[in-house]
């Protein structure tokens, strides 16, 4: 057994090992500390999904603000590992508007307003050269910067779905629906190609569900593409 026998009997998906001492894990210095975020997520799971829990609660989907970037990156690292896009690049994307969309639970009372970041998605418009570089696998998604975006929206050659992540089931459903609407809107404006590289099994499942095709190889970590001119795409259902 480990010296504290702490993990015995606890399934992997309900366990988190954090760096720190026996007492530091209960003394978070900020709200993004791993131990605190995990505790809060456990409590959310324990209470069950908050579905518009009170009359004062709303779900907001909005462009990410610079102050959201730290929370976005922290969530991205938890999902995708340390190799995610650097913070300064994320700040540039957040400054562009429309690239990062965040989901927040907002509670407003007479004397208080509290926001809680629940998830986000990242869809980067690509210039023609950048789309070609991605398709030729000369660059990967985490190397994209604002320089790879077209100077004018109408020059967008493709969209690249950089990330989709949410803290809980309910937020994930909201994030996915917001992403679907975002892409439908882009398709209506004439975007003909959407690219992505799923980094998790769950991401791969969603990619396949929406009929993305592998550019070369199948599986997690490989590039996928969908041609939006194809009829009966699940993403266009209801159009």
């Amino acid at each position: 057994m480990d010296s504290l026998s702490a993990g015995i009997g606890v399934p992997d998906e309900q366990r988190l090992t954090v760096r720190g001492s026996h007492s530091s894990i209960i003394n978070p210095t900020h709200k993004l500390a791993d131990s605190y975020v995990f505790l809060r997520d456990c409590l959310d799971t324990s209470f069950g999904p908050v579905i518009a829990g009170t009359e004062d609660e709303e779900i907001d989907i909005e462009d990410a603000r610079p102050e959201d970037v730290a929370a976005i990156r922290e969530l991205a690292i938890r999902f995708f590992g340390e190799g995610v896009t650097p913070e300064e690049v994320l700040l540039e994307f957040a400054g562009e508007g429309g690239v990062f969309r965040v989901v927040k639970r907002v509670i407003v009372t007479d004397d208080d307003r509290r926001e809680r970041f629940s998830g986000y998605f990242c869809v980067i418009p690509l210039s023609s050269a950048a789309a070609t570089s991605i398709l030729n696998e000369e660059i990967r998604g985490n190397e994209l910067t604002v320089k790879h975006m077209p100077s004018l929206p109408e020059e967008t050659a493709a969209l690249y779905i950089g990330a989709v992540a949410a803290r809980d089931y309910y937020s994930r459903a909201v994030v996915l629906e917001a992403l679907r609407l975002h892409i439908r809107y882009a398709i209506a404006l004439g975007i003909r190609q959407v690219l992505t590289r799923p980094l998790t099994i769950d991401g791969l499942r969603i990619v396949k569900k929406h009929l993305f095709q592998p550019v070369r190889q199948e599986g997690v970590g490989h590039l996928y593409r969908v041609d939006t001119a194809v009829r009966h795409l699940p993403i266009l259902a209801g159009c």
Partner: protein
Amino acid sequence: MIKLQQVTYAEPLDIHMYDDEPIVIHARSGRLSSDLVLFVHGLTGNRYGYWGNTPQYLLEDLPTADIGLYFYRTAWKRFGIARSIGIEDEAHVLASALLQIRLYRTVTIVGHSMGGLLAKAAIVDLLNRDDRKTLRRVGGLILLACPQLGSLKVPRALKWISQDGRALFPHNETILRIDTLFSSRLSIDRTADPLDR
């Protein structure tokens, strides 16, 4: 049990002010919460000053929950025959305190270190009482660095001089009994995935 209505989380100036109460609840004034998060400290712990900013953060972040802080005497605070009781007796006290909490839809217990063992023992105590009503209200148990089968880090000599040392000794009879009853009569909800992996 005492409930403090506060605009923001604040600890009393005298942190031992409520030491005779097993549970102190901090609630946000003007809000009726449906859930309670109950913290159970570990060896040598106190109600206040033990959990850092955690209670304050949670009271700010959780829209439907109040924060409860359980206190019991451990280690040197138990010196003196009258104060020295075993973990199962202490668990009986915690279980009885849980029984008193009726105004919340769910109570989620957060136990750190020996506090986690105590929480498990309290749930076993409720199982032994067949108190299903109280058990149904326990929405979850979160264990933080809890020595579920004892700790190799606790000096062995402590086993002979302290009830807590006995409770924390690896594979001791008491925690094996608690763990066996706990795992044989309860099953983990494997669909609950806080990391959403």
